[in-house]
């Protein structure tokens, strides 16, 4: 009952989020090899980490197998899961934007949009009154305009380097993205004190 399960995204966000927790005063194991392990215990704090694919973090949290989790706002917008969004951690800053080959117009009839974020892309173009065909890809989105699969892509931009290297330019910025602390609605009620403590400790770090 006392133990808190935290779903963490593997990869880039993990390092930043873990550091944030350590700086917030949590006594966690020094080195974590996040490449293979799926569950990591931090017995001193009665915390258990689940290491998950970033897109899966809100799923674990929604189902309550993780009490809280750290998820990018991009994932939250795309998945629209019913979880509490407790705190903007301010880490892993980036934004979602449209991009394409330089000096190109979109196909006037039905432009094609390649993306990992079909919901976000669809909502954005619908909001502009554009009829588009969304093509869902799982990676290397930049390839799509280069080989003529799509007119535009909708993707995460952090430094803009990947776009540049592939000869693409940014067109419209859609939304700013940071990582968020999320909680399962039931855990939030049953473990409210522990979760609130976590929020306050991380809030101090996020602001500082």
């Amino acid at each position: 009952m006392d133990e808190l399960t935290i779903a963490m995204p593997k990869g880039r966000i993990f390092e930043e989020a873990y550091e944030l927790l350590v700086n917030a005063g949590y006594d966690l194991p020094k080195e974590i090899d996040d490449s293979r392990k799926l569950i990591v215990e931090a017995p001193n704090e009665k915390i258990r980490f689940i290491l998950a694919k970033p897109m899966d973090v809100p799923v674990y949290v929604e189902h309550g197998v993780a009490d809280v989790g750290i998820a990018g706002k991009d994932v939250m917008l795309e998945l629209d899961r019913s979880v509490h969004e407790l705190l903007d951690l301010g880490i892993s800053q980036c934004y979602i934007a449209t991009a394409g080959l330089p000096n190109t117009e979109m196909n006037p009839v039905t432009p094609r949009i390649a993306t990992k974020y079909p919901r976000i892309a669809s909502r954005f173009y619908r909001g502009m009154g554009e009829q588009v065909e969304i093509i869902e890809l799982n990676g290397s989105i930049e390839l799509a305009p280069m080989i003529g699969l799509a007119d535009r892509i909708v993707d995460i931009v952090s430094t803009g380097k990947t776009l540049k290297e592939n000869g693409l330019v940014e067109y419209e910025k859609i939304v700013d993205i940071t990582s968020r602390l999320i909680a399962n609605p039931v855990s939030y009620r049953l473990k409210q004190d522990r979760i609130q403590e976590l929020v306050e400790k991380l809030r101090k770090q996020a602001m500082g």
Partner: protein
Amino acid sequence: MTIEMFEKPLGMRDDFPFIAKKKAELRTKGTEIMQQAGYDLLQTPTLEYYETIGKISAIPDKALFKLLDSQGETLVLRPDMTSPIARVAASKLLKEKMPVRLGYYSNVFRAQKREGGRPAEFEQMGVELIGDNSLYADAEVIILASAILKELEVESGRIVIGHTQLLQSILKEFGLDERQIEKVREALVSKNSVRFEQLVGELAIASEKVEVFKALNRSKTLEDWKQWINFTNPEQNALYEEMLKLEKIIDRNGLSDSVTYDLSFISHMTYYTGLVFEFYGAGSGFPLGNGGRYDGLMNQFGLQVGATGFGLRVDRLLEAISPNQENSAGTLILFVEETEQEAHEEAQKLRAQGEHVTLQYAPAVQAIDEFTGLFKEVRRLDGALNG
């Protein structure tokens, strides 16, 4: 797309025998408690008009199962029980004898858009207390719901209580207009604290009040609520007084440790106008049920009376119930042609004592060991030794 013979429509489930059995137990226990508290059980039709129940139910349109009847009218599979019961109460039979206490155990239908496995049909049990505006009615349904949870041995159950009308009044007091209140409401309903805090920056709230406002989604006790209440405002004062009285009743029923008073708690069900509450248990990642006061809904049926009630989701209760209540299988009597009569008489005798007895013609069973393994006790009248 071809449909395989064993497939079912999206979100529809078979209840296998052990689930069906558990549900039956749950139903018996739950409805018994309701009836002990003076609630009469009723059933309403599976199909209702889209124009009436479909629109009033506060369930999003795309979650409704719609179909046409032979007159071309649009029908819905009932998406909730509260609005049909309000319809019944508002129509002929019940107007004269308010307040009325009605209970139900029924299946409801809500189409799922994600993950085919989520149930689109599930059972709810609950009560509606119609025609009583007092806080005693609210207290009654909360205590009744927790009595059911207790009887079902739900582990570490928790109740969160909020108050829609009081929250609305407090938000006005902060100088917010209708549109801004709606935005705050949305952030609170979707439990988005980040959005909520962003909004604080966008709204024109006096700087000395900002911190107080921000704390709004962190209250746990009625004592916490005091910081937002303007006691010179008669509406707020009266509502708060009522909350204190409610708390006393709840405490007296031994629930003081399991209740959180969160002023920012509001339901996505827009028809709740006053007290709102939700139930949680350790075994399920989803709320077990919810309820509240819905005077506005009764007005839609042309009745100016108050009403309050709750609904519990049976599928989630099943997850939250402690698993120790292992169902013991009954007795098996295996017979052959010569012992058929003896076996029947033996079964009658045991059944009369309340035992569950399965009679089986032994030669029809292919794997005797596996089959007998399903039973607590086996009597072999088929010539083999009793083991």
